[in-house]
């Protein structure tokens, strides 16, 4: 059997196209399926705790109001908010994996903004908790929120600026101000200066008031000059809103690691089934096969060799793939031995299915086609969500999913990657039994062939 293994490896090494078909293609397909399932849905899910009492969402600046709530609603357009009733509840959502981020808006945010604008003190701050375990989703949530937050910032500072500039002009030039429904005239700095200057001119040359009033005029000159420059400088008012980010090591959303498990098992299935079916069919399409069956190797030995090679090949490919996927999705490396167990046993079951298919087909192309045609529905049947169908159809699908290795392999991998329920013991036993059953079926298929 050892020499047969060496021979198959040599043949595979010299058939790059075949290997590409058998290995690269399934992995690409699986990654595509995986990404389709795991790519973040349009909007990140964000737990939002808004402590601001309702009806108090507006900031008054001068005689204008900025409705913060209006901007908050815009923010909610770009996320899927889960509203919670406390700060702790929001953080728990992130830690539990139900939300990718938590946004906490403190009760005093409006006062803080008011304080900053009117007195220059205060630092209005919202808190953003991000799940750092999942870099891809973390980045996604962070981008969605900070993009909106900076819109709020810009809107607020633009408003502040507009109000401030209007007010300044009135201070400089005078005008009318609406106050409590009344038009209140404002004198303005320039007019005030003119009045004071006029007063100075009418005073006697040695009046004691003259130096004091002269000082007022000098100040007014200075202020007028200064304020004229000040208007554009106001634009550089820093961000009125601070986002305080906190990284949380929460659990990855179960869907992410489950999708990873699906991608990995789809690969395992394709590589295992195709490689085993292809290798066995290749053996038989090569005339040399007739020499082997003359007692050089038993049919059982031949099948074991193909199953072993295909299973180990598939497990190796998918282990590499899992390691790669773990860069994006949190997979529990501490459970690595279970990864190996799930992928090797799953590989054995799929490879046994493969030799059963390869035993029926007489050449590689038919075997590959049959393997493809059978594999896809097996995967889909196992993936049909339990609540999508009902009654008899569900029982039938469950039965089909039970007699093929996909569902068991998926359960084993999902558990190995993230401890998902149900445990890993039964799926592994299930896979071992399926490997034996399909091995026996392949043996029968071979007998049928050698008898003809």
């Amino acid at each position, binding site marked *: 059997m050892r*020499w047969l293994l060496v021979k198959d490896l040599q043949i595979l090494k010299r058939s790059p196209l075949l290997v590409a078909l058998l290995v690269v293609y399934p992995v690409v397909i699986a990654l595509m399926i995986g990404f389709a399932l795991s790519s973040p849905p349009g909007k990140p899910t964000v737990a939002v705790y808004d402590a601001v009492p309702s009806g108090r969402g507006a900031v008054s600046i001068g005689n204008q109001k900025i409705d913060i709530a209006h901007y908050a609603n815009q923010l909610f357009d770009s996320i899927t908010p889960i509203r919670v009733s406390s700060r702790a509840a929001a953080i728990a959502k992130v830690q539990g994996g139900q939300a990718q981020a938590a946004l906490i808006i403190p009760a005093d945010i409006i006062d803080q903004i008011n304080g900053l604008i009117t007195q220059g003190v205060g630092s209005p701050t919202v808190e953003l908790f991000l799940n750092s375990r999942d870099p891809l989703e973390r980045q996604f949530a962070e981008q969605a929120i900070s993009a909106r937050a900076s819109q709020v910032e810009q809107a607020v500072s633009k408003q502040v600026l507009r109000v401030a500039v209007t007010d300044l002009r009135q201070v400089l030039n005078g005008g009318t101000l609406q106050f409590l429904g009344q038009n209140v005239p404002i004198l303005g700095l320039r007019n005030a200066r003119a009045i004071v200057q006029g007063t100075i001119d009418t005073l006697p040359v040695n009046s004691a008031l003259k130096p004091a009033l002269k000082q007022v005029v000098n100040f007014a000159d200075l202020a007028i000059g200064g304020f004229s420059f000040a208007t554009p400088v106001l634009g550089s008012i820093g961000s009125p809103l601070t986002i305080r980010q906190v990284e949380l090591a929460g659990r990855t959303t179960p869907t992410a690691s489950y999708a990873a498990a699906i991608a990995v098992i789809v690969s395992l299935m394709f590589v295992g089934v195709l490689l085993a079916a292809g290798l066995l069919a290749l053996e038989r399409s*090569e005339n040399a096969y*007739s020499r082997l069956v003359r*007692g*050089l190797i038993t049919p059982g030995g031949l099948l074991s060799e193909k199953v072993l090679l295909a299973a180990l090949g598939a497990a190796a490919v998918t282990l590499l793939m899992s390691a790669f996927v773990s860069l994006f999705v949190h997979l529990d490396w501490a459970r690595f031995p279970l990864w190996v167990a799930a992928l090797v046993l799953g590989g054995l079951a799929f490879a046994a299915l493969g030799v059963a298919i390869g035993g029926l087909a007489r050449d590689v192309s038919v075997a590959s086609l049959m393997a493809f045609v059978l594999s896809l529905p097996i995967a889909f049947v196992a993936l049909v969500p339990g609540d999508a169908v009902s009654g008899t159809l569900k029982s039938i699908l469950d039965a089909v999913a039970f007699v093929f290795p996909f569902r068991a392999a998926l359960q084993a991998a999902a558990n190995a990657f993230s401890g998902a329920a149900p445990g890993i013991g039964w799926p592994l036993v299930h896979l071992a039994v399926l490997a034996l059953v399909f091995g026996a079926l392949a043996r029968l298929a071979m007998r049928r062939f050698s008898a003809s």
Partner: protein
Amino acid sequence: MTTGTQTAQPGATVAVRALTKRFGSRTALDRVGFELRSGEVAAIIGPNGAGKTTLLSIIAGVLDPTEGEVARPSGTGRFGWVPQEPALYSKLSVAENLRLFARLERVSDPEQAVDAMLAQTGLTDRAGEEVGRLSGGNQQRVNIAIGLLSEPPALLLDEPSASLDPRQRERLWEFIAGLAERGTTILFSTHNVAEAERYASRVLVLGDGELLFTGTPAELERAVHTEDRTPGDFETAFVRFLHDRGH
């Protein structure tokens, strides 16, 4: 259906008893029986589809018979087998093919056996070439070499010389004669009737799955001549023989 479990008569290497092989409704072999002694060289001749390959495959253990049995002395090793179509791994080199089968046959010194066969078939300088890229005749050389690797008690060759050039054909028969002298039983099929006459001490004539004749080439010729008294060469006699029996 029992194959190779029964013991052959003393002195016989292969005893074929009432072999019948049916593929669906077609009977490829019909109660064929004969015995071969050690060192005997026998040729199976007969038209296309007569059942030559089927018979050799059953004796080689590649096919199971529908009825009947193939008996051999207990304790003898596997028979050597050279199938009609080259049975090789096309992606492996000449030497890799030979080495693989030497190992699977559990030849005591695989490397030495491989070198000897490369020399015998004149393929030493093509040892590293992929078999799939060799010419048909050279593939047949490798095919034969694999059958000869393990010094078997009996050697079954299905049209071994069909695609060989005259020089290789000569070398093949020399080699086979040498094996027979050392006691190896040889059973080969051929459409080259002259070859059967020259190298075989016994001819088995198959027609439509039936064993029509077994005896020396001279006996076959005489059988025809006694019937119609026309002298001629062996090939004419053979064709005449088949014609007379409706084949």
